[in-house]
């Protein structure tokens, strides 16, 4: 490894396998990822030492007594340092039911959309007869 270089041990969070990886950056800024089993691990390792990102999930309050909150997610990873700001925005909101899974709540936050992940109230089950 060249002088001035650095390396970090990481656990990949791209999937539940959790590969133990070593991510190294040389003095010229070139990054190498070792220990990953797939391309997603490589991408995660590079991103993690440059600008760590996460998918954010949360619940938002509703106007319903029966279903007081509805879960949401970002449809892609956002920068970790922006998570607090998005949570603040979500906690100030109160949405009216019905909502459907996949429906958009926020069109653009740090390049991601915030979408509902559950249909509420749930779709009716067919009558038994």
């Amino acid at each position, binding site marked *: 490894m060249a002088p001035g270089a650095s390396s970090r041990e*990481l*656990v*990949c*969070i791209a*999937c*539940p*396998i*959790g590969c*133990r990886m070593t991510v190294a950056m040389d003095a010229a800024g070139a990054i190498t990822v070792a220990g990953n089993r797939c391309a997603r691990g490589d991408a995660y390792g590079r991103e993690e030492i440059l600008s760590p990102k*996460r*998918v954010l*999930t*949360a*619940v938002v*309050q509703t106007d319903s007594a029966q279903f*007081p*909150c509805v*879960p949401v*997610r970002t449809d892609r990873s956002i920068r*970790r340092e922006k*998570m607090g700001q998005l*949570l603040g925005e979500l906690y100030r909101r109160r949405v009216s039911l019905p909502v459907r*899974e996949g429906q958009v709540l926020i069109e653009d936050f740090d390049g991601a959309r915030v979408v509902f*992940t*559950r*249909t509420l109230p*749930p*779709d009716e*089950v*067919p009558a*038994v007869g």
Partner: protein
Amino acid sequence: MINRSVDALVIGGGSAGLAAALRLREGGASVAVVEREPFLGGILLQCIHSGFGLHEFGEDLTGPEYAERFIRPALAAGIEIYLDATVTEIGEIPAGGEPARAVIALSRRLGVIRFAARAVVLAMGCRERNRGNVAIAGTRPSGVFTAGLAQRLVNIEGYVPGSSAVIIGSGDIGLIMARRLTLVGCEVRAVVEIQTWPSGNARNIAQCLNDYSIPLHLGHVVTRIEGRDRVEAVRVAPLSPGGEAMSEREFRIPCDTVLLSVGLIPENELSRGARVPINEGTGGPWVDADYMTGARGIFACGNVLHVHDLVDFVTEEARLCAERAARFLGGGQAEVTLPVAAGANVRSIVPNACAPGRRTVFTLRSLVVKNDVRLVVKVGEQEVRARRLPHVQPSEMVRFVLDAGEIPAQVGAPVVEVSLR
């Protein structure tokens, strides 16, 4: 009282029950699902985090999204669905030909329902071990929750249970809840794990604890919970190599909430009532090569059979179980099977028998933490197959597949033994 007659009755409308019901229905059977909650989806609905569906769909889904992928087809498939209904008893109806099962359910809307079902699929999931199971000393204040209950309060009821918490046990639900509580403004002061390695997977240690600088005390024990009306603190001590709490190094962590993430137990009260034999290694029923329990016509899959790490594998198992149940309903001929036993370093293995003539998906739990392991399949004294595993530990289920013919059918010895070396 309402009487219903179906080919297959599925008990539980969560991930296992929905996948089994859909596969049975695809095979042409008439199917009913009984679910005690007023909605389908089971525990997935409170698991609002992502990480589900990578095997099944090649996508990173949240729990509710994963559930919706089975709820929508189930609603459209012509399956009878009973919500807000609890099964209280699985009995037997003596009949002329193949005996059917009588299953009694109590429905909030319909009253008592009596099902006659030719096959029953147990898919009730599991329950959490609680304070009584792990014997924590101290007072009995409010503020002590199982992690899954806290998850339900935060994610379904929209209620934050406290302002500062200590989590006992490092199971995945506890780790997920450490992050979740942090994000809703409840400060998580520590995760305390009695073993010297974490119970949850490494990825959850990274993204749930390390991301938020939450301390993980491995090889430590909570020696007491303090507080009269509400939790005020926990006392924590390191364990000596002999497993004794080292009281001279005990320390106190003030908090108003304690979460327990100390393991899951298959939910088999109904099964025991139906005299289904239980495997003490898994806490779930013994099942044969068809996922049929020791009670004829009663099948089991998902967390009621054995606790899984990943829902994707619950789905896979539920479908395999449903395919065998469908074959049973169709009067399929008996096939040659061999019993399967847990050998060295294996705590439990599912299923407990296999048919050499077809593919079998095995899942097992290790008794040991070990790197560079050989998984060995022996028939009698003869080693017939081996697999290399980079790492095993008790908290990570090992899944492996034997294809048709990998076990020679005409080996004399009767038992297939799987061990880790």
